[in-house]
Each structure stands twice: as structure tokens, then as C-alpha cells.
């Protein structure tokens, strides 16, 4: 009994008095806030201990590595928030998008991008119908669609690398005001737009509520099927745009591009603090999760560690994030 009282008193300072700290510590925002803080600390640490860490070249390397994964992560966050776990067709959709990108680049970049977006939207819509309307399990359904998409892509490309006939440099290497890569501007624009849509629109509110409690959502008369279908459509489109970014850098299409995108996006979503059970988290959290992972990978890279080590570290970070999420969930109750 004595020990219990002591434990209680030492636990008291965990209940902070400063309003700023209190906001930081709110259980439902704790992980998302912590990831942002750790990202900043990592950047500072890198700057202090690694030569040229914040040089233009290295910062650009980080930014280029975050853009495509970040866009896919924001798309993935729509699915996770809706309570449908993950879309496991993102890598396949992105890979086939690189082929479409390369084969249609002669039409000019805007037309190419439009076609890629339409492709992604159709693939996403298909999954939305299968999961949202027919009520299929999202994991199984999206793996199955991934297989169909990859098969169709392989038939179409013959499994070869396709070199685009045209100029994709605006997207591939172009910069905004000579400073920020256009890819990064695109990522930021998509993330901000997604944040606004989810936080401020009726669709976004419904998406979150469905993720929290699908039975209550249907009793309340929310547009469950329509909302889920749109969420999948958005996620499919995001995957296709990520593919366009991959393809634009070398103006090439290949089914191997985009491998690992599914896991990278899932990692960003979970590390960023979007709840795996749905209903909790924000679009910006996924974007920051992607940035965090990009910074970690970059540090490992410039420290001279092998790609295999980076993979293992990424896996560890995700496991830690999932455990942390479960622990925070435990505190709440």
C-alpha cells in the first residue's frame, strides 16, 4: 500500500500544468507530436555530428526521397482513418503508373499526368466498390487487385523497361523558384489539401466517424458506402501520382519501380500517429511520418550503413510505433 501511494505521487508530474505541454501530452496526439519533435532533434543531431548534413545536396536528397512516399502515405492515411487498415495495391498501382507515364510521355507532361491520375482513380474506385459496397476484407481485396494490376501491367509492357519519349524534367528535376523541388511542392500541396478535406468537409467528418464506429455510422445514416469508395479512389490516385514521380526522374517506366511503396506508406502512416484501428489521426501526421522515415534513412545512408540495415531499422521503427500506439491506447482507457 505504501508503494502504491509513492507510485501515485511520483506519477503526478506527468500531469503537466503548462497548457502548451498539456496539449503536447494529450494521449490522442502524443505520438504524432513526439514524431515531429524527434524529427527536429534528429535534424539537429545530424547537423551537429555529420559534415555537410544540411548542405543543399543532402537536403535535396532527403526531400526527393520523401516526396513520392509522402504522397502515397497521405493516400494510405485515408484508408487507415476509415478503419479499413491498409491498401496493399499501392506499390503495384505505382509500378504500372510508371509504365503508363513512360509510354504516354510523348503526349506532353500535363496529358501524361492526367492519364496516370485517371488510371489510379479507376484502380482505386474498383477497390472502393469491392470493399465499400460489397463489404470485402480490405487486405484480401487490395492484394487481389494488386495482383490483377501487376498482371495487366506486365502484359502491357512485356516486362521491359520503357523509356519515355518526351520531357519530364519539370516534374523530375524541376524546382520551384530555383529552390524547392517541384516534387516536394506537389507533396506539400497534396498533404495540405488532404488535411483541409479531412478536417473541414462533411466527407472528412464522415470518414473519421466511420473509422471510429462503423455500426454507429450506419445507424446515424452517414453515407458509408459512398465515403469509403471515395477514400479508396483518393488512395489509388495518390499511388498513381507517386508512380509518376518515380518515373519522371529518369523518364522511364519499369514494374520494379515502386516496390516497397506499400510498406513505406504504411510505415509513415503508423509512425506518424494515425491509429491502426481507425478514426484517429490527421493527414499531416502521415506526411510527417514520411519525413521522419526519410531523415532516418538519410542519416543511416550518410553514416555509410548498408541498405539492408536501413530496411531493418525501418522495420524496428514501425514495430516501436505500433507498440507505442498500443501503450498510449492503454493509458487512455
Amino acid at each position: 500500500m505504501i508503494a502504491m501511494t509513492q507510485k501515485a505521487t511520483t506519477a503526478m508530474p506527468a500531469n503537466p500544468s503548462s497548457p502548451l505541454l498539456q496539449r503536447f501530452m494529450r494521449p490522442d496526439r502524443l505520438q504524432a507530436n513526439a514524431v515531429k519533435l524527434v524529427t527536429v532533434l534528429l535534424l539537429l543531431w545530424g547537423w551537429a555530428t555529420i559534415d555537410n548534413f544540411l548542405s543543399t545536396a543532402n537536403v535535396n536528397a532527403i526531400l526527393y526521397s520523401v516526396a513520392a512516399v509522402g504522397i502515397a502515405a497521405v493516400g494510405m492515411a485515408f484508408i487507415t482513418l476509415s478503419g479499413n487498415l491498409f491498401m496493399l495495391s499501392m506499390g503495384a498501382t505505382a509500378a504500372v503508373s510508371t509504365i503508363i507515364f513512360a509510354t504516354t510521355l510523348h503526349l506532353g507532361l500535363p496529358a501524361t499526368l492526367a492519364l496516370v491520375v485517371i488510371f489510379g482513380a479507376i484502380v482505386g474506385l474498383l477497390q472502393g466498390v469491392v470493399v465499400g459496397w460489397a463489404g470485402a476484407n480490405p487486405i484480401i481485396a487490395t492484394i487481389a487487385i494488386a495482383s490483377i494490376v501487376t498482371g495487366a501491367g506486365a502484359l502491357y509492357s512485356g516486362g521491359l523497361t520503357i523509356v519515355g519519349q518526351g520531357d519530364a524534367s519539370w516534374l523530375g528535376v524541376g524546382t520551384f523558384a530555383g529552390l524547392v523541388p517541384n516534387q516536394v511542392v506537389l507533396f506539400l500541396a497534396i498533404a495540405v489539401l488532404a488535411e483541409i478535406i479531412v478536417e473541414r468537409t462533411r466527407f472528412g467528418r464522415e470518414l473519421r466517424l466511420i473509422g471510429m464506429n462503423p455500426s454507429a455510422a450506419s445507424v446515424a445514416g452517414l453515407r458509408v458506402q459512398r465515403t469509403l469508395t471515395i477514400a479508396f479512389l483518393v488512395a489509388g490516385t495518390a499511388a498513381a501520382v507517386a508512380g509518376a514521380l518515380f518515373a519522371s526522374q529518369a523518364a522511364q517506366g519499369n514494374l520494379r519501380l515502386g516496390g516497397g511503396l506499400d510498406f513505406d506508406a504504411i510505415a509513415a502512416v503508423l509512425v506518424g500517429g494515425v491509429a491502426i484501428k481507425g478514426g484517429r489521426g490527421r493527414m499531416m501526421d502521415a506526411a510527417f511520418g514520411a519525413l521522419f522515415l526519410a531523415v532516418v534513412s538519410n542519416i543511416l545512408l550518410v553514416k555509410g550503413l548498408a541498405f539492408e540495415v536501413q530496411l531493418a531499422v525501418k522495420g524496428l521503427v514501425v514495430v516501436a510505433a505500433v507498440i507505442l500506439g498500443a501503450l498510449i491506447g492503454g493509458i487512455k482507457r
Partner: protein
Amino acid sequence: MAASPATDTGAETPRRILDVKGLRKAYGGIIALKKVDFELEPGEVHGLCGENGAGKSTLVKILGGLVAPTEGGIVVDGTALTPGHRTDPRLISIVHQELSIIPDLSVLDNVLMGDDRVGELFLRGRYAAEVRQQLDTIGLGHVDIDQPARELTLAEQQLVEITRGVMRGARILILDEPTATLSDNEIQRVFAAVRRLRDKGSTIVFISHRLPEVFDLTDRVTVFRNGEKISTTRTADLTTDELVRAMIGREVAAREQVAHHTEDVERPTRVRLKDFSVPGRFAPLDLKIGKGEIVAVVGQLGSGADLVVEALAGLRRGYVGAIEVDGVDVEARSTTQAIGHGIAYVPEDRAGKGVFLDATVETNITTSVLDRVTRFGFLQFGKASERARHLASLFTIDPKRLPSEVSHLSGGNQQKVAIAKAVALDPRVLLLNEPTRGVDIGARTEIYRQLQALAKTGMVVVFFTTDIEEVHELADRVVTIFRGAVVADRSCAHASMDDVLTDIIHGPRDNQERAA
């Protein structure tokens, strides 16, 4: 810990089997329990009373080790509990209101579920005799241990759960609203079992919102209010009024005053059901409901009475017959369709279907009317919050609670949110399934008052309930269904609740009526 009473076990029988000292629990700024002392004498049935949010459930959760206290200690029969660790079921076993019976497993497997003595190798036969004996003691002598639990009635399943606690040799058995879903004669079976256990030396904590049960069953009663223990009294020394006063801290209007029944007046018909039925569940029925009328549809579990309400709400797409609202035929094949016709529904399962526990009160109240607070797809937060504020005030929800998550509210307040959410639609017909299950007296009165006020504006209220008092206090009219058929349609102003109870339990009484 060394100085804890754990050292003096065995020397003499402790007079107290449970000793709770200075228990405090705070969730952030909200204090759920304030320095509570609580003890149990061995071999007593001890009632826990208090409104929702009074601290009962927090105490139970802490006793079960599901929640760690902020301060304070618990000693069970000489053993100090480790805070935040699941309590050994041999010390305290809790039977929750929600059954944890697995329908497809046999009775034996259900009883042994989670028992530590059963090793990795599940040797059923080894415990069969012991389980058989325990089932006999508890009044389940007629139940076969190999029978799937699905085939038992709710009361029998409840008793199987209690048997599970007894099998583990729990020193203290906590029954958390064991009777909430049971009918009257089923309740008597559970009570008989509890008395039998007490006579064999078990200590039992009994939690119920139904005061007559508390007086019927318990030896002592402890009352909680706002997280504080108010009193512990011998039940025999207590009157109902004293108990109610202790629970809510003020006088309540007597039952008769709360229950107001509008005398039968001619009302223009608002809802008309023609040959309305769900095949296989309840037979075709014809019903006319007037503007502003409050109708209770009652019946035993399985009678189909609750399905009448569910089918109207759009939850039974296979219904047949016609629904007419304000003279126009409407279809209710989905909730969305029902809502479109001005039919709103409050489900019975609050946490599962009624509210979004993780969303704020404000968000919850506006969920069903998102279209009305949206412009060009964008939510208008000012408008939404104004609506929420208005509805919250109707149901006396503290406006300061609007930004807090519903999971932080008491059961009574959660139910107010669930009802406010439906009322937000300005429905022509409001359907409720168990309007106040697990809701304390204070909140219940407020809910009844508001529903009656809404009916005065012309809204039709139709509800299903298993609580006969609720019919008496809320309804103008009561329709009883027995085995899928309407057996009585009475005006509450003229019928006694005993009549209604007889309708519910016996159904048609041909011979009696012939005699009369």
C-alpha cells in the same frame, strides 16, 4: 509492502474480507473516485447504489484490476492487490452486465473458460463432476454440461457466468447489473442462486439500478454519489425514499407526479401500420398512432416486440406491409431511407451503435444532420456548434462538456447524447430501443421529461423496453406482443402495470377473459 497486512494471514479469521482504504482515481482533471474507504463482511450480499458517474463502475474496474488507482490500497482476505494488475479471480471475480458467454461452446467449456487450473491440455472430463455439482447448486440442475450455451435462456447464461466465478473459488463475487436484460421470473432464478451462494459463505457485491431488487436481495447497501461514498447502511434500516435521497442528494418528485398521462384525446393519425410484419418474427399487425402520442411496445425477449421498433427504423429490410406517415406511404428498407422520411432511431446498444465514444459531444450530436451544417461540402463549425449547444441544453447536458469525448461521460449522459443525436433530425417519428437502459434515476427523469415535451410538439415516440416502470412513467399507450402477436393495446391512463405484466408473461388469457 512489507508492512502490509499480508503478513498476518491465517492467525485469525479477518472480520473483513475486503478492505479498501483511501482509494482515489482521477482521469486527467476529472475525478472519478475521491478517497473512498469501503469494506465487506464475509458472507454478506452487499448492494452498490448510485447514479451513473457516481463512481461504482470505477470502483469495480479497480477491484478487478482493469484500472490502476491514482492512490490508495486494496486488501482482499489478507492479500494486498497489485495496482493495475488483473486481480486473481480466486480473490475477486466479476460478472459483467455484458455476457461473456461463447454461444458455440458447451456449458462445461464456458464454465472452465479462462480457469488457470485447466492446463494447456484441455482435459474436460477431469472437471466435469465438479462443474456438474456447481451447476446443480446454482440452480442449473436441468442443464446438460455438453449442451451448447446458445440453447440456454439469457438468465441461464447469466447463471453459467456466475458459475464460472464460483468455480474459481472467488472469495468475492461482483455482479454488475446481472438483471438488466432479464425478465421478472428470470430475475427470481438469479436471486435464488445468489442467496444459495451466500448461504454457502460467499461474499457478493450486487449492483443494480432497480431499487426493489436491492431491497429484496441485499444485507447492506453502500451509496455513491459524485465519486464519494455517502453511506453504508443495513438494508433493513433503510426506506426507498432515504436510499433515493442518498443517491441523488435531493428529493425527487414522487413517481406518480413524474408519470403524467395525458387523458385519451382525439389525435389526428400520424403513423399507420398496415399488415406490418417481419416474416417469422412477428405476425402482421395494424396500428394507428396519433400525433404526439408516446407508445410503448413491450414483450419478453424473443417476443418480437423489439423487432417492431427495429423494422420501423429501417433495420429489417425484409419487412412486409405498409408504413404510412402523415398519410403518405413510406419505405424504410435502410436507416438512410427511414431518416429521409423523418424516422429517427436510438439503438439499445449505446457504446456499439448509439454514439461515437471517441468523438466529442458536439461532433456526436451533429452526426445525423451533417447535411444541414454543410455548405459546398465544407462544414460550418459555427452553425454546427450552435445546433449542438441548443440540443445539449434541451437534454440538460452541461455545455462545458461539448468539447469532451463521449467516452468520458457517465452512462446517463451518454444516453442523452445518443437521444439528442436522433432528435437533431427534427424527426416526425422518434424510435427508441431501451430508452434508458443502465441510466440513473436523475438522468432518466430528465430524459422522460424531454421526450414528453417533444411529443407535445407533435412528434410520435415509439419505444421498446424491458423495464415495466418505464412504460408507466413514459408512455401514453402500451402495445404488448406475445410470441409475435399483439395481445393487448392499452391506454396507460386506464391500465395498471400489473395488467401489462400479465399480458407480457402470459399472453392471451382466453379462459380468464371468458370468465369475465
